[in-house]
């Protein structure tokens, strides 16, 4: 197993190191990092806005670039939370707790330095996991029939909506809404136009980019306009030489880093538990293990290193189910599926260049991140002080042109505005829109497989519990719902309070 994995990896490096591919990866990492640093721009918004840049690139280059954008933005978010106490992306909310106090003590540079290192270690472990686990999972996945695929999707959807932030019932409602939006358009089997309300433009369904940009672009801007106070960059003057951690710092952060990595990789194996949960669990674990738990929140280096390692390890690990089973773990992964490539068990066999090239480029990209962030930190700090009023209005242009360029269709620009309005209303009503995207992406495939499973079983719904693999997934679903109810019934919602710090 190891030797084939290594040969494949070698091949992957060959693909990823081709001059144009490495260039796309580099551009992706730099631009992703740059946009991710900007306050208020999480990976979801960053990827959505930068998607149009990848149109017209060869699929391999495009996916390498998008992946680069994703982990670049992920890392950029850490800078914003450590230096400004602004978590642009929920996983970084815990990083703020100890990262910002460190900045106040003038040790922000050190915090950033160890973060670079911790995220690299976390990511490397996640990639290694991917190399060895993905081919195994693929072999299992090839045995899957429609019934198994259906129950696995159900598990993913349930986990994605109930374990995320906010009320689980509202999360499920958002997923159902997403599934419904996926239904709009022409039915693949019968050709019936559903819910198009007579608009021929809707025959092909809602465009994924319009949905993503509406919810995470326009909706988010409406939420933040005139609310974001001018950024207080008082403490944020970090110079290059401040970034080098001392030997003592490294020694203190070594074990937290390992623990964070392990927590992250465990979390990534459960579908639906994205980096947010990984980082919160990691922080809680670290606090428990520590001899001085009362000092957490006052600038403990462990409190920065552990969640960051965990976030990055889980982000990379999330690629495993996405790529091998074709079922994205969270909204970010769902967006990566845009580029015309259908991930799934066939991907590794049919497009080894994409799969192994992506794996290899993760490493190259993560090394680039380390190398880039050391000298460019001054530039990032400058970027942090750009006022929001310039940011959102320029971003509006990117939203419009991005949606237009996807299909050269102006109608979709209007579609985005409508979805953006809906997204803002939902946000005001206490919903989190991310599960919509997941439901939307999985919706058509869920329907297709559900119909097929029912056809094969001659309309017998028991097929989902009669086939063993499917039964396991269904059992997990029941367990998940049962746990949620149990936690509710017990009254004080303890696990929720940890997550609520993100808000």
């Amino acid at each position: 197993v190891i030797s084939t994995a290594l040969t494949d990896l070698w091949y992957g490096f060959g693909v990823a190191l081709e001059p144009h591919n490495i260039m796309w990866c580099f551009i992706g990492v730099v631009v992703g990092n740059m946009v991710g640093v900007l306050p208020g721009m999480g990976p979801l918004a960053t990827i959505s806005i930068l998607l149009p840049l990848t149109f017209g690139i060869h699929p391999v280059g495009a996916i390498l670039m998008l992946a680069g954008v994703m982990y670049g933005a992920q890392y950029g978010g850490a800078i914003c939370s450590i230096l400004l106490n602004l978590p642009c992306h929920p996983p970084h909310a815990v990083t703020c707790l100890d990262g910002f106090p460190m900045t106040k003590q003038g040790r922000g540079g050190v915090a950033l330095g160890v973060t670079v290192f911790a995220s690299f270690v976390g990511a490397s472990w996640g990639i290694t996991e991917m190399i060895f686990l993905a081919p195994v999972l693929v072999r299992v996945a090839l045995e899957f029939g429609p019934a198994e695929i259906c129950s696995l999707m159900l598990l993913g959807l349930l986990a994605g909506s109930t374990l995320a932030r906010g009320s689980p019932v509202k999360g499920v409602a958002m997923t159902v809404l997403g599934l419904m939006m996926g239904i709009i358009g022409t039915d693949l089997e019968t050709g019936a136009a559903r819910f198009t309300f007579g608009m021929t433009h809707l025959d092909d369904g809602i465009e994924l980019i319009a949905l993503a940009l509406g919810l995470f672009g326009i909706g988010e801007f409406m939420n933040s306009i005139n609310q974001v106070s001018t950024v207080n960059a008082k403490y944020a003057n970090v110079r290059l030489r401040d970034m080098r951690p001392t030997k003592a710092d490294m020694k203190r952060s070594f074990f937290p880093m390992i623990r964070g990595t392990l927590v992250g990789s465990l979390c990534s194996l459960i579908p639906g538990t994205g980096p947010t949960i990984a980082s919160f669990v990691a922080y809680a674990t670290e606090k428990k293990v520590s001899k001085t738990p009362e000092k957490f929140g006052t600038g403990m280096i462990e409190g920065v290193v552990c969640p960051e390692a965990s976030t990055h390890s889980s982000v990379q690990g999330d690629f495993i189910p996405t790529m091998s089973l074709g079922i994205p773990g969270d909204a970010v992964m769902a967006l990566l599926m845009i580029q015309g490539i259908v991930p799934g068990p066939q991907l590794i066999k049919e497009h080894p260049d994409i799969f192994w090239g992506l794996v290899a480029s993760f490493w190259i990209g993560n090394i680039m991140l380390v190398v880039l962030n050391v000298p460019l930190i001054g530039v990032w700090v400058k970027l942090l002080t750009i006022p929001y009023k310039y940011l959102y209005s320029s971003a509006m242009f990117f939203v419009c042109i991005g949606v237009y360029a996807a299909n050269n269709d102006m109608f979709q620009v209007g579609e985005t505005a409508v979805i953006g309005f809906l997204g803002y209303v939902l946000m005001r009503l206490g919903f989190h829109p991310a599960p919509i995207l997941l439901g939307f992406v999985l919706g058509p495939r869920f329907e297709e497989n559900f119909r097929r499973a029912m056809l094969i079983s001659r309309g017998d719904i028991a097929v989902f519990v009669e086939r063993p693999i499917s039964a396991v997934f269904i059992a997990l679903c029941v367990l998940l719902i049962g746990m949620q109810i149990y936690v509710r019934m017990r009254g004080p919602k303890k696990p929720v309070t940890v997550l609520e710090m993100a808000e």
Partner: protein
Amino acid sequence: LARNLVRKRDFYAGGLMILFGLVMGLKGPSYRLGTLMHMGPGFLPTALGILLIGLGIAIAGTALGVPEGEDEDILPENREWWGWGCILASPIAFMLFGSYGGLIPGTFACVFVAALGDKTATLKSSVILACIISLFGVGLFHYLLQIPMPILEWRGL
């Protein structure tokens, strides 16, 4: 009780979900339901609609459990009607000016309208920003990425 309910956020959240569910559930059967074995195009929408109505009722039900006096206003403290309007008008401006005039007018209108939404924005600052972004946009999207949209043309009304 009824008056209290009207002021709860979850009441509206549930109501909205019930509304969506009703649209799906009532319109779904018109696409032919089919049988469980041979599902028609209306089967899943109808099922999802019913599920969403149930979830909506559950959400609206939790509104009863929320203690009085919490921040339950559905509108935020600062009502940015002007700002929201500008953000929503910006894509519409892009659509209009983009389809009749091309990339430059579209971009300019889009950024200009969006920029006006900020409280501290002036006409001058918005025009300057819109000019900069238009220049940048033409360079990046027309020359570099070659998006098939004319830079400047008049297509008539």
